[in-house]
């Protein structure tokens, strides 16, 4: 059984990397180079008064929400499982299994919505689909095959959990999990290739005729930046949703022991969400830089053109995520008896986070100062204005990240008393690292503010690297400093109800944020199906207004929340045993 899986996977990889081994013959038959289809406005099917774009948009976004969740959870489930093997603590193993249980219920819905997406694309955009099939040829079949394989692995991984729980068998189980994640990530990478091909086509000539291999089309300029960005975002997203689940269970449960379990699960999920979230700006920067390198036009459309306002909403969303995550962490300080001594720092961190949030929110009024209009050469260029304040926004987000990490570090330390002799000096080294790093972030921001555009973009890299240096540096120092530290008792479950609502902010804001970013990413193509190669002549080929997009995104998010409530309900149903009639009252 396993051997056949491996063979299938091997075959899939071979097909993926060089599909021409198989399809070369077919290609030679169709040697005439045919360009991309050029459908006119009338060629787009009109079905009743249905807005084709809204249908496809909703289906695609819903599929993405579910798929992101379903792909992310096994990633940290296997990490948690590994933790249980390393620490020998069964709590980790139970939690990993609980993570997977939620995924199982969501999985079939993912497939269902995916089918709906495919159907709506075929119905409403037949020419585009015909073209994409022409470019990606057999890869779509491989995708379907891998999807089947993913299903098998997922079911095997989940249902063999107890059978393969102890001793050497655990390693078999984790191997299945590893395979599951490999297949899952491959699926995501393939789907990303189609999406990034539509933004930055490769392997085709300017008319859209297929000249390269499937691998060339796959490996288009934006593929890897998108892969990394989605990989990290999925982890953050999955963590946030599982956190919402834990928060709900914490509120619903009365049993203190179960409350403690879900408090701990909520804390871990929040940790996972933030862990995925912290490097995201860096991945985002890489993606934007690659977009600029691929097409200045596209980059400017995103950062300076009609979409510039959108990044203000993004700022609000990220701001609420940061505030909520920090609020949760600060509330967590009361779980330990030593936490109170750190609580005095909270207000300073809060000032920075709120301040950063505000900096990110307000700058748009700056654009309209007379000075700036004069510098931009009149109102015609005012659309480029937001670029001018990018350094301020970058500085704010980096500071927010640094201080969010500091909240984590404070909580982590509140439960550990260092015993090494150089603890005081070690603390000083960490403090100095924070001080210099923060000065560097602010300095690079000011430098970026007063220099021309190229420097602005350039100066944002040292900022992100400073943030990562602070985080990695202080983690390394902490590892050595807290070696053999005296552990304090953590009273899991000693949390306010209000703090749990912070955990609901994360999935809601993340879901909406992902919807918003999907809108941006799609809008970058402006009125192209496949940028520069295949024009979108449909009646809805324009960029919808922010308000309209907000309505659609909100509606999809509500739909997703309804699905998730159903999924959570299902997974609870599985563990509910029928009781006597006294409960029915």
């Amino acid at each position, binding site marked *: 059984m396993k051997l056949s899986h491996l063979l299938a996977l091997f075959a899939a990889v071979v097909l993926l990397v060089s599909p021409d081994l198989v399809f070369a013959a077919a290609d030679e038959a169709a040697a005439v180079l045919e360009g991309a289809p050029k459908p006119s406005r009338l060629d787009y099917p009109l079905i009743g008064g249905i807005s084709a774009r809204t249908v496809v948009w909703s289906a695609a976004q819903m599929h993405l929400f579910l798929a992101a969740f379903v792909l992310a959870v096994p990633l940290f489930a296997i990490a948690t499982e590994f933790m249980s093997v390393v620490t020998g603590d069964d709590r980790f193993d139970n939690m990993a299994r609980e993570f997977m249980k939620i995924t199982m219920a969501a999985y079939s819905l993912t497939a269902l919505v995916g089918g709906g997406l495919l159907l709506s694309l075929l119905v409403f955009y037949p020419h585009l689909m015909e073209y994409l099939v022409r470019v990606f040829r057999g890869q779509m079949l491989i995708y379907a095959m891998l999807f089947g394989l993913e299903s098998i692995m997922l079911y095997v991984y989940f249902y063999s959990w107890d059978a393969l729980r102890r001793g050497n068998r655990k390693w078999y189980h984790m191997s299945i999990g590893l395979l599951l994640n490999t297949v899952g990530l491959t699926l995501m990478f393939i789907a990303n290739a189609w999406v990034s091909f539509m933004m930055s086509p490769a392997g085709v000539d300017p008319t859209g005729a297929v000249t390269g291999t499937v691998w060339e089309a796959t490996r288009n300029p934006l593929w890897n930046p998108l892969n990394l960005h989605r990989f990290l975002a999925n982890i953050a997203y999955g963590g946030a949703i599982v956190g919402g689940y834990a928060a709900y269970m914490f*509120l619903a449960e009365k049993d203190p022991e179960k409350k403690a379990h879900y408090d701990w699960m909520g804390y871990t999920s929040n940790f996972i969400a933030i862990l995925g979230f912290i490097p995201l700006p860096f991945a985002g920067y890489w993606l934007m830089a690659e977009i600029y390198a691929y097409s200045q036009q596209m980059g400017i459309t995103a950062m300076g053109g*009609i979409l510039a306002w959108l990044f203000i909403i993004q700022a609000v969303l990220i701001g609420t995520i940061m505030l909520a995550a920090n609020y949760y962490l600060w509330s967590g300080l009361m779980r330990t008896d030593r936490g109170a001594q750190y609580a005095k720092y909270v207000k300073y961190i809060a000032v920075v986070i709120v301040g950063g949030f505000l900096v990110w929110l307000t700058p748009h009024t700056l654009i309209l100062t007379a000075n700036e209009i004069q510098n931009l050469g009149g109102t015609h260029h005012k659309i480029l204005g937001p670029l001018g304040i990018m350094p301020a926004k970058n500085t704010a987000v980096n500071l927010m990240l640094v201080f969010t990490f500091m909240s984590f570090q404070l909580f982590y330390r509140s439960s550990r008393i260092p015993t090494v002799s150089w603890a005081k000096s070690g603390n000083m080294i960490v403090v100095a690292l924070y001080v210099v790093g923060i000065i560097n972030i602010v300095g690079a921001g000011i430098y970026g503010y007063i220099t021309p555009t190229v420097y602005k973009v350039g100066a944002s890299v040292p900022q992100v690297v400073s943030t990562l240096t602070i985080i990695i540096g202080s983690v390394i120092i902490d590892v050595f400093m807290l070696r053999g530290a005296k552990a304090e008792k953590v009273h899991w479950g000693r949390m306010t109800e209000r703090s749990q609502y912070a955990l609901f902010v994360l999935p809601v804001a993340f879901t909406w944020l992902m919807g918003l970013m999907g809108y941006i990413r799609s809008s970058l193509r402006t009125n192209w199906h496949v940028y520069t190669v295949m024009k979108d002549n449909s009646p809805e080929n324009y960029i919808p207004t922010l308000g309209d997009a907000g309505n659609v995104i909100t509606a999809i998010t509500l739909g997703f929340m309804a699905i998730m409530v159903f999924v959570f309900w299902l997974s609870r149903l599985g563990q509910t045993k029928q009781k006597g009639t006294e409960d029915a009252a």
Partner: protein
Amino acid sequence: MTFLRVIGFSVLLLLGYMGFAHMLPQVVPDTSEPVEVSTEGLDMDGFIALGENIFKGKGTCTLCHNGMGRAPDTLEMDMAATYPARLADPRYKGVAAGKEGPKAIEEYIHESMVAPSAFVVEGFGKKGTNDTESPMPTVNMPPIELNDVEMNAVTAFLQDLAGLEPTVPLPSADDAPVAEEPATEGGEPAPLLTSGEAIVDEYGCASCHDLGGSGADLGPSLYGIGKRMTRAEVIESIIDPNAVIAEGYDADFMPADFGESLRGSELLVLTDYLMALPDAAPAAGDGKEEPLATTGLEAIDKFGCAGCHDLDGSEADIGPKLNGIGKRMTADEVKTAIIDPNATIADGYEADMMPDDFADQMDDSELSLIVDYLMNLPE
């Protein structure tokens, strides 16, 4: 209960985000299909104006060629001195290398559009290519896709900008039509006007010319103009009204800046519309009576005040500026000035310019709406 509270909280949060998306300025996309118009009959001034429109609009040149350091600031630099220097630059090996004169400059400009990497201005190359590769997209390829006529128009504009006589050929009837894209790049917030009626409305032509039954006689009637003038003459009269003055009319009345304010395709659409006008105004009273205006703004629009007066930024200067008039005149004086315009003539303006039959044209309610509106106009 917990469930309801959690759901309520989440929905409120969502609605907050949605509300915020509605609070921000909405960039309303122009969903009209691109219009294709013939450039036949365009003279060089019109061609330069079209070029400027393309440079700032469809060509998206100003996205990078501006003061923000992405690309040389073509509109601000002294291009008269720059072009000869580029041609003589030892690093330049393109088609016009070593040549001189306006024709060579035309070749250089054209080449910089179709092969941007032929010469990269120092400091503006792609990173790491040592200024051998330009980040500029090729403008006759997607996504910009200018055709030859459009590139010639841009070249004419750039040559004119450098104080040179354009050397590009004028478009002929055989040339491809010019398509102006809707402003999807967010360049111009004002939507592109694609019908003659809309353009006539927007620019208030009927307030001076007899058009749409306006009966105005400050300028010649536009009915039957297709019989009296060629397409080229009509275009010329729009963008350079003082070039030829019709008998019985005076020079300097018609604003001379329509060449700049009309977008390239609008000028051509307007011309087509005028050329197709019937010989005479449709008989009055055939049910085309305009409805009564119900707001000051509607009334102002209906009677085309902004066509002659500087009003809310129309910048017309045949009559005195109306913004801030509430500070200079009383409501009664304004009312008199409308129904009996020759009673008092403002300094620097002439009598008999403003129609004196508004008392008949306007309903009393419309008159008072206009007076109210004008009195409250800010400076």
